């Protein structure tokens, strides 16, 4: 009686394992190939990692990198269009706000 019970139990466990193992493996590959991996994001150049000391300025790659980063820096400066800004903006208060922020930061440290 016992051996029959053990045999049926072993058979059931084997069946469950046969279904579960492939199912788990498949679900793991599905997460590994998440659709977000295929999305291309338009990233800005990360110029902070550029090591000028190791760069040969005659090398086209170095020259291209410098060009890209300079253009990006110029663009980010130019994006602040003062002509479109509110003329009623109170510049006198700006310094005070800046000082307050740096004071708070110092307190936090």
């Amino acid at each position: 009686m016992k051996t029959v019970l053990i045999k049926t139990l072993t058979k059931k466990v084997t069946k469950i394992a046969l279904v579960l193992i492939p199912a788990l493996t498949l679900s793991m590959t599905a997460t590994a190939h998440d659709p977000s991996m295929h999305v291309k994001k338009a990233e800005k150049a990360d110029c902070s990692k550029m090591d000028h000391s190791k760069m040969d300025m005659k090398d086209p790659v170095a020259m291209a990198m410098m060009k890209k980063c300079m253009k990006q820096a110029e663009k980010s400066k130019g994006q602040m269009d003062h002509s479109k800004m509110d003329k009623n903006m109170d510049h006198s208060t700006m310094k005070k706000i800046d000082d307050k922020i740096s004071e708070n930061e110092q307190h936090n440290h």
Partner: protein
Amino acid sequence: MRILKLLLLVVVLGTGTATTIMYSGIVNVAADEPHSDFVYWLLEETRESSIKKAAQNIKVPDLEDPEMLLMGGTDYEFMCSSCHLKPGQSESDMSIGLYPAPPNLTLSNEEHVGHEHENDEQASRKSFWVIKHGIKASAMPAWGKTHDDERIWAMVAFIKRLPTLTQEQYQILTAVE
């Protein structure tokens, strides 16, 4: 008369065999089932000879202009990198799934195993032709239908420097302005 009959028989038998193979469905076209070594060699040799002949008279411009690297870099990132990879990457869904596998362009000419190692000028000519015209039944598109020669040469210039680029250099060169 005998020879003519024999020739006719060969033609009829040949056509019959080809038609039977075509319509029987016995040829496996699945991309996850590789060709036999012989078929692979046959197709590869045909492709390489065709590209070599077609590209032999192409004049290569100066590819050392930094502006070309910038133009080609952005195009490479959005049009090519998912199949031909980028620095620090050894495989992608496309490079694994496509058959024949797209070449890893982050490797230098010398690092490609089993290929003829051509000089810089030949490699540039070949790259230009392949990018412009594509390759039949290989998933390589003909970018020349939508991109002018100047843009394609910029991609060639970028691909030429790609094996030497670090991940950081690649990120800066391919970033969108």
